[in-house]
C-alpha cells in the first residue's frame, strides 16, 4: 500500500525534473537577454540591472535597416506562402479523397513516397533551375513550390487533409450532387467549410516550417533588403563574432515569439496535428 502512495510522488518529481530541464534554458535565455556581456558569465539567472537597451540596440544592429524590415519581409513571404498552400493543398486533397480517376492509387502512393524523400537531394537541381529562371534573390523559389502543393511540408498537408476529408460523410456530397452541384461546388461549398479545423493545423505548421526554413532562405535570398529574420540573426552573429551576446540573445528571443504565441493560442491544433500524422513538429 505504501508503494502505491509513493508512486505518484516519484512520478511527479521525475516529470517536474524533466520539465525543468526542458524549460530552464529558455528561462535563462530571458535573463541573459537583459545582461551585459560581463554579466553573462555570472551564475545568476537575472541581471542586477536589466539592460533593456539590448533590445533597442539589437533592433537597430544591422546598419541601414531595423528588424521591423526583416519582420515585414518574413511576414510578407510567409503570408503569400500560406495563402497558396491552403488553396493548392485543399484542392489536391479533395481530388485524392473524393474523386475517382485512373491511376489515383498510383499517384497517391507516389505522394506518400515523396513524404520520405530527403529534401537535400533536390536542393542542387532546384537551385540550378531557379537560377536559370532568374528567381534567385526573389521569394518565388518559396511561393511557386508551395502553390504546387510542395515546398516545406506541402505533401504532409495534402496527406493530413486527405485523412480529414475521408472522415466527412459522403452523403453530404451525394445529396449536393443530386441537387446539381458541380465537383468544384462540392469542394467549395460543402467540404471547405467543414475542413476549417484541419486548415488551421495546416496554416500553423506552414507558418512554423517556413519561419524555420533557414537553409532555403540562406540559398535564395542574398540582398539584405530582402532578408528574413533568421538571416538577419545569422548576419549579426557573423559580423559581431560574439561581441554583443546580449543583443543577439535578445533578438533571437524576439524571433521565437510568433511561434510561441501561435502555440499558446492554438495548442489543441498542435497536439492533434502532431499526434494524428506524426508531423515532425
Amino acid at each position, binding site marked *: 500500500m505504501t508503494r502505491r502512495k509513493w508512486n505518484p510522488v516519484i*512520478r511527479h518529481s521525475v516529470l517536474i525534473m524533466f520539465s525543468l530541464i526542458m524549460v530552464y534554458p529558455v528561462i535563462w535565455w530571458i535573463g541573459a537577454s537583459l545582461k551585459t556581456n560581463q554579466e553573462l558569465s555570472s551564475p545568476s539567472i537575472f541581471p542586477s540591472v536589466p539592460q533593456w537597451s539590448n533590445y533597442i540596440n539589437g533592433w537597430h544592429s544591422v546598419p541601414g535597416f531595423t528588424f521591423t524590415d526583416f519582420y515585414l519581409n518574413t511576414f510578407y513571404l510567409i503570408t503569400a506562402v500560406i495563402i497558396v498552400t491552403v488553396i493548392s493543398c485543399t484542392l*489536391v486533397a479533395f481530388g485524392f479523397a473524393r474523386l475517382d480517376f485512373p491511376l489515383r492509387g498510383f499517384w497517391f502512393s507516389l505522394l506518400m513516397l515523396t513524404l520520405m524523400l530527403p529534401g537535400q537531394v533536390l536542393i542542387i537541381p532546384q537551385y540550378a533551375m531557379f537560377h536559370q529562371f532568374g528567381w534567385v534573390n526573389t521569394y518565388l523559389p518559396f511561393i511557386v513550390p508551395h502553390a504546387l502543393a510542395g515546398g516545406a511540408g506541402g505533401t504532409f498537408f495534402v496527406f493530413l487533409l486527405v485523412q480529414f476529408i475521408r472522415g466527412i460523410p459522403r452523403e453530404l456530397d451525394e445529396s449536393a450532387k443530386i441537387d446539381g452541384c458541380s465537383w468544384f461546388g462540392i469542394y467549395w461549398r460543402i467540404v471547405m467549410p467543414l475542413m476549417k479545423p484541419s486548415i488551421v493545423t495546416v496554416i500553423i505548421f506552414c507558418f512554423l516550417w517556413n519561419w524555420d526554413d533557414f537553409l532555403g532562405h540562406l540559398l535564395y535570398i542574398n540582398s539584405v533588403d530582402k532578408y528574413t529574420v533568421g538571416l538577419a*540573426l545569422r548576419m549579426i552573429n557573423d559580423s559581431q563574432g560574439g561581441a554583443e551576446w546580449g543583443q543577439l540573445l535578445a533578438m533571437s528571443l524576439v524571433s521565437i515569439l510568433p511561434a510561441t504565441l501561435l502555440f499558446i493560442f492554438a495548442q489543441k491544433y498542435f*497536439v492533434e496535428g502532431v499526434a494524428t500524422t506524426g508531423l*515532425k513538429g
Partner: protein
Amino acid sequence: MERATSLASEIPVRKKSFRKRWDSPLAGYLFISPWLIGFLALTAYPMLLSLYYSFTNYTLMKPIEWVGLDNYERIITADDKFAQSLKLTFYYVLASVPLKLIAALMVALLLKKAVRGISVYRTAIYFPSLIGASIAVSLLWKNIFGVDGFFNQVLGFFGIPGTGWVTNPDTALWSLIGLSVWQFGSSMVIFLAGLKQIPNDLYEASAVDGASKLKQFFKITLPMLSPTLFFNLIMGVINSFQMFTPAYVITGGGPMNSTYVYALYLYERAFSRYQLGYSSSLAWIMLILIVAAAVIINLTSKYWVFYESESQGGKGK
C-alpha cells in the same frame, strides 16, 4: 437485422461502380493538377537532373562536361572529407536518434498516468520541439555551451570542471546531439497518442493473471507501441541524417572539423565552391544511404513490429 439492411443498401452501389469505372477522370486530374505539375516539374525532373549532374563536372560558370563515374570514384577513393563527414553523421544519427526515442518513450509512459497537470507537463516538454529548429535556438545553444556559458556555471555549482563544449573537438558533436535530444517532445506526443490506443482490458486481464509491471511493459506496451516506435525511428533517422542548421550556426563544422556533418559538406561543395556536379554525386550517395537505412529498418521490422491484425484474437484493422 441491421446488418442485413446495410448489406442490402450496399449492393446497388457496387453494381454501379462495376458498370462505370471512373466517375470523374477529368475533374480528378484537374483537382490534383497542382500537385501533379509540382511533382513532375519540381521533384521528378530535378531528381533526374541531379542524377545527370552527378556524372558531370557542372559548375554554374562553365559549360557542362560529362565525366562518367569520375565524381563517384573520387568521392569513394580519394575524398577524406567525405569519409570523415560520413563517419560523423553516422555517429550523430546513432547517438541522437536512440537517446531521443528513449527519453520520449520514458516521459510518455510517465505522462500516460499522471492525470493531474498533464497539459502543463506536455506543454513544457513539447516547447523545445516547437522552437528547436530555429536559428535562434542554435544561437542560444552556442552561448549556453560556450566556455563561460550557462552549462559550465551549472557544472561549477556541483564542482565539476567544465570545458568549452562547442569549441572543444572532443565534445562539440555531443553538444549538437544534446540539442537534438532536448527536442524529444514531438516524438513524445506521438508516443502518447500511441499509448492511448492500447486497450485497457489487456492490462486488466494480465493483472488478473498476476503479471508484474515490468512484464506488462515488455509483453503489452512495447509490442502494442512498436508500430509507433517504427515510425518515429524511420523519421528520426531520415531527419537527423540531414542535420544542417545547428552545425552551420553553432560550430560552423569546427572545431577541427569535429562537427563537419554530411549536409554541411554537401552545402559547402555546392554553394561555396559551386561544384554542383560533384555535390550532386554526394547528394545521390546520401539518398542511397538513407534509402538503405530505411530498407534495413523495414526488413528488421517483421521481427519486432507487431501489428494487431496478426494476432489471433485481434479484430483485424
